[in-house]
């Protein structure tokens, strides 16, 4: 395993790993919007003054339910491929966490409805209730994030399985859980900033002017997110120990680590440009988006490398090869672009044919 990810693995393993990571990246983008967006919405509601309009809060309130739906839909594909890659470990972690794990479903349903409730006139008119509703939604999403973090760490710790089962505990205790969750949660802020920036830019270009201060606020959010997530990443690296640190910059992960680091710089430059810009904001958002892509892709691969090196991954090659023997790959590769084109067509139809709402 001296080659950069995903090279150096047998063909089927490399193929499933690459497919998993790419689909996970799509999920992470929407997940970040939901997680960070709900947090930012709550923050703005706490800070906001009654009767004043808040473009960011309105935008988030409007789009968060869709973003959650997109996150769940995009999450199905990596959930499928993880079952091919790490079947036994993933299933075992699910089983050990039992009710705790299954609770993420009602939590997401409740969170989903609370996001919809945010949009109702009844909730909008009641500031305290509004706070309560947003807090509830954020709690649901943080619980889901916590559960996934636990699941990930438990799945790669085979030595803990039997004793955890015997103990009847449904909580996996590991000192990495909270710092890791903090890293992913704060790391969601720059993604949110980029997406919010694009939404505002589109609105601005569509004839609903957006104040420069709002763009600056978004740029500050992105830059702040990069700084605090970077600090968390440094702290987390100290926590995981030298072996994991070595793997994170080892032969398999280093190009991706470098890509992520470079992405942070590019993204930061994009946010600085956005902060200063009075026009051409699309250019700076494009730069920030390119950086973001590298950051998410790079960190997702490094995350995967840490899992690969924590388990007896070579023992799973045969299973991947067996799964690869079944046919149907071309069915997927054929329908994926067709349905992607149709989806773009649908979005284009909606965006270009819809009459503009009255101001």
């Amino acid at each position, binding site marked *: 395993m001296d080659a950069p990810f995903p090279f150096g693995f047998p063909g089927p393993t490399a193929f499933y790993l690459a497919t998993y990571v790419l689909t996970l990246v799509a999920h992470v983008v929407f997940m970040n919007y939901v997680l960070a967006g709900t947090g930012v919405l709550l923050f703005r509601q706490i800070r906001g003054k009654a009767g004043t309009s808040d473009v960011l809060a309105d935008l988030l309130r409007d789009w968060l339910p*869709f973003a959650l*739906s*997109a996150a*769940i*839909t*995009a*999450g*199905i*594909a990596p*959930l*499928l*491929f993880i*079952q*091919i890659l790490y*079947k*036994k470990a993933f*299933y*075992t972690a*699910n*089983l*050990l966490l*039992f009710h705790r*794990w*299954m609770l993420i*479903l009602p939590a997401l*349903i409740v969170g*989903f*409805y609370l996001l*919809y409730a945010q949009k109702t006139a009844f909730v909008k008119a009641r500031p305290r209730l509004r706070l309560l509703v947003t807090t509830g939604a954020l709690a649901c999403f943080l619980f889901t994030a916590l559960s996934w973090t636990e699941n990930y760490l438990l799945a790669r710790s085979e030595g803990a*399985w*039997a004793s955890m*089962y*015997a103990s*009847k505990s449904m909580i996996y205790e590991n000192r990495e859980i909270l710092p890791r969750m903090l890293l992913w949660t704060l790391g969601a802020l720059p993604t949110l900033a980029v997406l919010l920036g694009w939404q505002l830019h589109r609105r601005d270009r569509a004839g609903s002017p957006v104040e420069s201060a709002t763009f600056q606020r978004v740029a500050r959010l992105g830059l702040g997110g990069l700084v605090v997530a970077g600090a968390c990443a440094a702290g987390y690296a100290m926590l995981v120990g030298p072996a994991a640190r070595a793997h994170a910059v080892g032969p398999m992960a280093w190009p991706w680590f470098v890509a992520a680091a470079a992405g942070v710089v590019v993204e930061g430059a994009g946010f600085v440009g956005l902060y200063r810009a009075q026009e051409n904001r699309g250019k700076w958002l494009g730069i920030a988006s390119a950086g973001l892509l590298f950051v998410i892709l790079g960190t997702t691969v490094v995350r995967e490398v840490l899992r690969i090196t924590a388990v007896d991954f070579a*023992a799973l090659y045969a299973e991947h090869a*067996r*799964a690869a*023997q*079944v*046919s*149907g*790959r071309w*069915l*997927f590769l054929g*329908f*994926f672009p067709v*349905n*992607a084109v*149709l*989806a773009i*067509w*649908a*979005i284009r*139809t*909606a*965006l270009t*044919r*819809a*009459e503009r*709402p009255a101001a």
Partner: protein
Amino acid sequence: MKSARGTPYINLVVDTSPLGVPYYPTNDFGPLMKGLVIGGLGIFHVFLAQFAIGGGVLMTYFEWLSGKGKLPSARRFTSGYFKVLVLVSFVVGALTGVGMWFTSIQTSPRTIGLMVDTFHWVWATEWTFFSLEVIAGYCFYRYGDRLDGRSRLFLLGLYTTAAWFSLFWINGILSWQLTPGAWLESGDLWAGFFNPTFWPSLFFRTFAAMAIAALVAALVISVSPFERDEQKELLHRAAHLLAPMALMPLLGAWYLFAMPKDSRSWVLGGSPAMTMFFGLGAGASLLVGMYALFGLLLRRLYINSATASLLIVLGFAATAGGEFVREGARKPFTVRETLYSNAMTPAEIVTMRERGSVTHDPYPLRDAADYPNDQVRLGAKVYRFQCSVCHTVGGVNGLVHLAGTWTAEQTRLNVAKLQHTKPFMPPFAGTPEELEALVRFIEWEAASRPKEFEVTSDPATLAQIKRWLDEAGTAPGYAAASEKKR
């Protein structure tokens, strides 16, 4: 690597453990049978998913009527109906779909693992359709009111097509579990996908989806602020989607006759529970169909929100009956002739008869100290590994209720020849010592878990168990029954 009937599919279900069997930590659901949990969620999810598909058909139909000027109130109705669909189906429907995976892992990780291994590309393809469904649906939800009729029809048509194809792919996977068809011989994906029950099941589900959508439409129409005449016209048009229900008896019969003979026999009287659920499904469908015919199509009756709600409940009961039958008819397998309901392959049972089923199970018993001796502890492990997926100890389908009054001799014989005792049970997969331990575990539980409990180790008893196990063989019970008839 052993293979059953020399087929390649078995390659997908091996593990690196000494027996080639993956051991998973087994959770105890208390008095609840695991099947009830997955069944309950499954029925709920199927109902919502079918509502999403049928809802698309209904709205596309209404949008078309509106475009033709045949139903002026259709657009207003469609906007309101779509909000219900998004709030119910997009949220709870989507998440219970993910929930089905998670619950399946809780119930039988090996079964869902085999399904994923075999059909992951079909599932991935289904995901592309589901994504398209969500995207088209949201575009309509957000922008539909501001779009021209042609664009609305395009988005609704796209939504409906994607939703139906989602059903198309999933239907192939689910029907394969009961009737894998030629896949058993060739391992060919498409032979398994287009299996004997694929088409009747697909048509049946499509018509069921349309019926559910029409019933929900009746409720939405009856509580919406339409004029009475508008309501009547909308109800009449919505009822057109109930008309294909007339074909359901034929499709049901087609499905039944495409099933394996033994599975059909459970439904048609062999298993009272299954027959009862079959009757529930058929009866509820009949009632809905009759109301549709007289009330809505022939316009003899009006429908208010209470009646519409009642009809939806009947629709849910019909779905529940149908899904229970589909799940139950697979017994003693979760994937016909491949994985038994307790997630063992036929070939592994042969090995386990020699080497034991729990010898290599790495998971200790919880509360091991509560058991009086090692024999009962072994029995508890055998119960956990072989029985707990369908049975509880003292709750639903509890072993104590089923076997607690049998004599020891009777229990030994019945368990040793399990697939003959009840043909929907898998063969016992273990050594005579494990069987005797299971018998003692049941007796200990039936005796209210006394602190002291005798250990049995009579060589003659074990030899008798061995003889019974050999006589029973490892083939499923229905195979032996067919042999006997011949």
